[in-house]
Structures are given as structure tokens and as C-alpha cells.
């Protein structure tokens, strides 16, 4: 069992490091942010995980279009689904944070709006899939749509937040955080532990869903 699931245990170890060091480790003292700077390990990791999963989903959609293999379509779907879950968690945790730093949970900040639009585009991916009954047609249309949905992430999450003024840490520059705010102590937790830990957890959940789904299909065809 251990042999096949070493990366699942790695995910657990990395997240334990993140949770313990995330609360007890040293952080730079900044006005307004105060201790909420620790949200970097949790809230920001949600978005990084979402982005990685959407990239994987995009790759599988392209693979589907090249191969017409239904398995690739299923992978694309499940990675997008888990990505949406992490995106929603990112949005909700961001709103909780905004309530105590900006005064209101929703401020129509360009970063909030961009993230909301990006997620709505991915909701439409699910709606589109469910509106088509023919399996091949559904897979093909969904794969093409998924490529456009990913293309829309570039303006909504990468470009617009860089162009407009924002209350979010990072201001006009980086969409995720101010690289001058965090120091090397925080980077040593964020990059080697938080981002890979959360990503591996998300991949694990996705593989469970894919396996469950193929069991379901086997049973239907039996």
C-alpha cells in the first residue's frame, strides 16, 4: 500500500509542516495585514492549486481532441471540478479576510471580480456538458469550450489584476501577493510545503473521483 501511495503520504507530511510552521513560524510584521499574512499558506495556496488543476484539465481536453479517447474527457472534467472547488474555497476565504481588512466581504475589487468571472466561466463548462446528451458530441464540445475557458483565465486572473489598482496585497503588480511583503522564512514554507501539499491533496481527490466514476461506468455497461 505504501508503495503506491507515497505521494499521498508526502501530501500529508507537507500539509502538517504547512499547518504547524504556518502558525508557529515567524512572519514579518506589516500594518493592516498583521497576523493575516499567514493566509498566504492557505488562501493563496487555494488559487495556486486551482490554477494547476485547470492547466491539467486543459492538457487533457487537448489530448481528447487529438485522440477522441473518452478517458481523457473524463480526466479533463474531474480536474476542472476539483479546480472549481478549490477556486470557491479561495474566493470564500478571501471574502472572510476582506471583511476584516477592507471592511466588507465584497468590494468589487478587480481581483475579486476577475476571480468571480473566471469561476462563472467554469460553471458554464459544467452546464454546457450537462446540456448535451450525446457522449461524443458532449466530449468534443466540452473540450473545445474548456480551451476557451482556460484562455479566459489569462485576462481575468493574470492581466487585469496587474493593470488596475487593487486593495489586495500585491496592489498593481503581482495578482497573488506582494513579493516584498513576504520574507524568506515565509517562502520556505509556501513554495516547498504549502503549494505542493495542497496540490497533491487536490490531485488525490481528483483521482478518487475518476476511479469512482469508471467503476460506475463499468457497472452500467455490465
Amino acid at each position, binding site marked *: 500500500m505504501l508503495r503506491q501511495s507515497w505521494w499521498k503520504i*508526502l501530501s500529508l*507530511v507537507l500539509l*502538517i509542516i504547512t499547518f504547524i510552521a504556518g502558525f508557529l513560524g515567524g512572519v514579518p510584521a506589516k500594518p493592516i495585514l498583521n*497576523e493575516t499574512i499567514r493566509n498566504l499558506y492557505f488562501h493563496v495556496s487555494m488559487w495556486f492549486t486551482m490554477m494547476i488543476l485547470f492547466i491539467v484539465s486543459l492538457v487533457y481536453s487537448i489530448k481528447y481532441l487529438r485522440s477522441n479517447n473518452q478517458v481523457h474527457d473524463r480526466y479533463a472534467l474531474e480536474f476542472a471540478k476539483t479546480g472549481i472547488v478549490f477556486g470557491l474555497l479561495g474566493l470564500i476565504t478571501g471574502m472572510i479576510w476582506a471583511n476584516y481588512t477592507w471592511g466588507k466581504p465584497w468590494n468589487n475589487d478587480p481581483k475579486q471580480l476577475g476571480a468571480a468571472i473566471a469561476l462563472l466561466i467554469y460553471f458554464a463548462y459544467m452546464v454546457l456538458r450537462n446540456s448535451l446528451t450525446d457522449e461524443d458530441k458532449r466530449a468534443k464540445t466540452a473540450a473545445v469550450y474548456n480551451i476557451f475557458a482556460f484562455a479566459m483565465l489569462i485576462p481575468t486572473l493574470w492581466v487585469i489584476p496587474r493593470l488596475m489598482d487593487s486593495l489586495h496585497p500585491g496592489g498593481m503588480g503581482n495578482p497573488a501577493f506582494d513579493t516584498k511583503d513576504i520574507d524568506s522564512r515565509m517562502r520556505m514554507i509556501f513554495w516547498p510545503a504549502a503549494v505542493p501539499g495542497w496540490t497533491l491533496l487536490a490531485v488525490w481527490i481528483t483521482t478518487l473521483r475518476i476511479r469512482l466514476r469508471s467503476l460506475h461506468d463499468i457497472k452500467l455497461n455490465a
Partner: protein
Amino acid sequence: MKKITSLFFLICVFLVATAQVGDTGTEQAPEMADALRSSGKIYVVVAVVVTILLGLFIYLFRLDRKISKLEKGKY
């Protein structure tokens, strides 16, 4: 076994790398939750959060094993 060794190695590298990060000059002013930590209560939060994390992972491991059993055809 090789994978466990490499996993252990990775963790060691991480710990060593963390240990080498020195304290950067601390600026004065903004108030932080120092009092909370010195009175020891932040450890309560850490314990709670780690418990939740462990619980979730146990749940996921069990779910994983159940699906594996189904895949092997042991209904």
C-alpha cells in the same frame, strides 16, 4: 523502499533549508499576536487544525482503500 528513502531525504533537505534561513531585521510597530503565543494558546489552535487535517486524511485513505477493493472486484 527507494521511494520512502527519497521521501525522507526530501524532508531532511527541507528541514535543513528552513534552519538556514536567518532572522531578517524586524521592524517595529504593527501589533502582532505575540501575547497570544507567549501565553501558549496558539498551540491550541495548531492542535485543533492538525487534528482536523489528520481526520480528513484518515477519511481519504479509507475511501481510497474502499475504492481499491471495489476495483479488485470484491464487492
